């Protein structure tokens, strides 16, 4: 479950983080918030919850006056021109676990947000104090940036301060300067695919439905086997790109599929039916049913590994500005 405002504030106190708090009626916009806390010392923040086309999420937290151009940011992250857009409402609840209008860097305290990338306006550093919502938009807290950094460190996060108004050129000779801030993992939300598809431009096959990854078996009478990881990590089982890079995960998935099939084939009935031959029967069955799928998965694994190798090699021989940084001996 997500942290409540009270739990979060208690945590701040435990960490001996110095902050002031201001209660006010629920505010949905920065303008409204300014009405209540605009006079207090500190830079008011605006917080954007964004997602890219590959279901990776970002919080951009900036001073209210800082101009944030999503197109520029998208290019600087290496997502191309139209890669970033506002995340859908459902994602707010699922990923950040905060109500509408309460986006805040502090939402990263929730485990569900572990793959969300945080971009902080370097303008915060020039302020005595900064104002954020503490997981709920009926309160604002003000604290020094150092205290914010202290909090982020406590949850194992780095503070990435970015000049959000900068617009450096991005091209063949100028790699996207913020590319390192792109999360390595995407987050696929349950029951979202149909809605997500209608929110986005024409068919993007990237959104793979979590709940719909059921194996349709050869015979209609067979129980349907779920491709889901038996350890029930819904996010991981539908992220092909990560399981095709992680050996452990890859092997786990193969073993899950095999053991699921094995277990479904060994029943009282089949034992009675085949007796001592059951081993041979099940073995053949596994081979027949899984061969094709395992081949597909392994091909993807191999393709991913090759692609990584290819890009490393390309990088090694591409960089002209860092003379002889990489060498083949």
């Amino acid at each position, binding site marked *: 479950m997500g942290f409540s405002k009270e739990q979060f504030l208690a945590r701040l106190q435990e960490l001996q983080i110095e902050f002031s708090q201001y209660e006010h009626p629920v505010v949905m916009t920065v303008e409204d918030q300014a009405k209540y806390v605009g006079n207090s010392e500190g830079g008011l923040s605006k917080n954007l919850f964004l997602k890219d086309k590959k279901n990776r999420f970002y919080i951009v937290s900036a001073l209210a006056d800082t101009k944030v151009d999503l197109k520029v940011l998208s290019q600087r992250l290496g997502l191309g021109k139209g890669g970033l857009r506002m995340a859908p409402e459902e994602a707010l609840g699922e990923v950040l676990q905060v109500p509408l209008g309460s986006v805040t860097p502090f939402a990263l305290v929730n485990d569900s947000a572990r793959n969300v990338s945080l971009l902080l306006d370097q303008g915060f550093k020039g302020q005595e104090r900064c104002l954020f919502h503490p997981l709920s938009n009926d309160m604002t807290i003000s604290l020094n940036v150092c205290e914010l950094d202290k909090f982020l460190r406590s949850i194992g996060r780095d503070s990435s301060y970015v000049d959000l108004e900068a617009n450096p050129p991005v091209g063949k000779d100028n790699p996207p300067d913020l590319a390192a801030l792109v999360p390595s993992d995407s987050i696929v939300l349950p029951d979202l*695919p*149909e809605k997500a598809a209608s929110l986005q431009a*024409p*068919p993007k*096959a*990237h*959104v*793979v*439905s979590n709940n*719909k*990854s059921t*194996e*349709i078996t*050869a015979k*209609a009478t067979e129980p349907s086997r779920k491709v889901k990881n038996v350890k029930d990590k819904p996010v991981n089982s539908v992220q*092909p*790109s990560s399981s*095709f890079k992680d050996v452990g995960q890859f092997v786990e998935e193969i073993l899950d599929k095999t053991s699921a099939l094995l277990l479904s084939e060994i029943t009282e009935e089949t034992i009675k039916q085949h007796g001592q031959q059951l081993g041979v029967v099940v073995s053949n069955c596994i081979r027949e049913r899984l061969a094709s*799928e395992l*081949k*597909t998965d392994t*091909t*993807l694994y*191999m*393709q*991913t590994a*090759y*692609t*990584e190798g*290819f*890009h490393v090699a*390309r990088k090694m021989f591409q960089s002209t500005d860092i003379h002889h940084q990489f060498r083949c001996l």
Partner: protein
Amino acid sequence: MDSKAAERGASENEKETPQEQEQEQVVNPWEVAAKEGGKIDYDKLIDKFGCQRLDPSLIDRVERLTSRRAHVFLRRGVFFAHRDFNDILDAYERGEKFYLYTGRGPSSEALHLGHLIPFMFTQYLQEAFKVPLVIQLTDDEKFLWKNLTVEESRRLARENAKDIIACGFDIRRTFIFSDFDYVGGAFYRNMVEISKRVTCNQVVGIFGFIGEDHIGKYSFPPVQAAPSFPSSFPHLFSGKDNLRCLIPCAIDQDPYFRMTRDVAPRIGYHKPALIESLFFPALQGETGKMSASDPNSAIYVTDSEKVIKNKINKYAFSGGQDSIEKHRQLGANLEVDIPIKYLSFFLEDDAELEHTKKEYGSGRMLTGEVKQRLIEVLTKLVERHRRARAAVTDEMVDAFMAVRPLPNMFN
């Protein structure tokens, strides 16, 4: 791989005069229409084009040479015609390898099952024979023929590349290229050699170009012919001018490659061999046409389980009888039944297919059951494709499309 209008055929083995053709079925890269709303007569087609039927002995030979069961498309006669495939097999037996060449005209983002068929088969050929493959994305062609900008056609090419990659090609032996990126150098030199050996009258004859057509169209055919020659890919086949080429494609592409085969000996290369497939029928039946404007005429790789179920149940043309009693009595008409046809493409189990045909044909099995089974099979297929597609990154596309050596491409 498209071109326009009535096919007349440039050279090899053409028997009919233009007048005789008008009353017949029409098959060319642009148009496929059966006679009087009937079915395509493939025997006549083979006869007219002058290619050969793929007989069972060739299939046996493939199984022996590759030490594995022939692909379901071969067993069921989906790939049913060829030119010089036996020469390819003869050479293979002698230890002489070959390379595969196929392609796609990236005109839309959405691919349907019909589009996947040549790629699924090519993937099998690559795996079974362990040979390299070049895949041409004719983005220039689509720009020339359709209302697209250059940027848009290049973008579509990359998007289509992802679906193609999802078919499971071996990245260690596959080179994907877009015309806009790759044409030049040795490839272009071959294009010009080819252009010098094909007359305006010939392309008008094959593709039906007219005086008002812009010159881009006239100059396109050599682009699609060039990949048939190994010297077009110096980074892959340098020094291997004798390497043979096998082109898996749908039979409507035959006129195109007849032109190429005609030119080949004149510039000192082997004629490319062809292995050709039937047309994949639209959901509404063989007489119907799969069209991008009617999403219900085909199953798309982006269709969800629900959509597939709905499309099959609602639109798949059934050969079953109107009432259950009549059906039990007369059985289904397997000749026109679409679910059975689709199952013969995609249901791997020969025994199950035979059984289903028998039961359905005799009336013991109902249409609903057959459709249900088809929905299962297609859902599994589409699901697997989607899963693979989701794992294809832009970086992976870059790697497939990089002009790079492919060491061990024959191992």
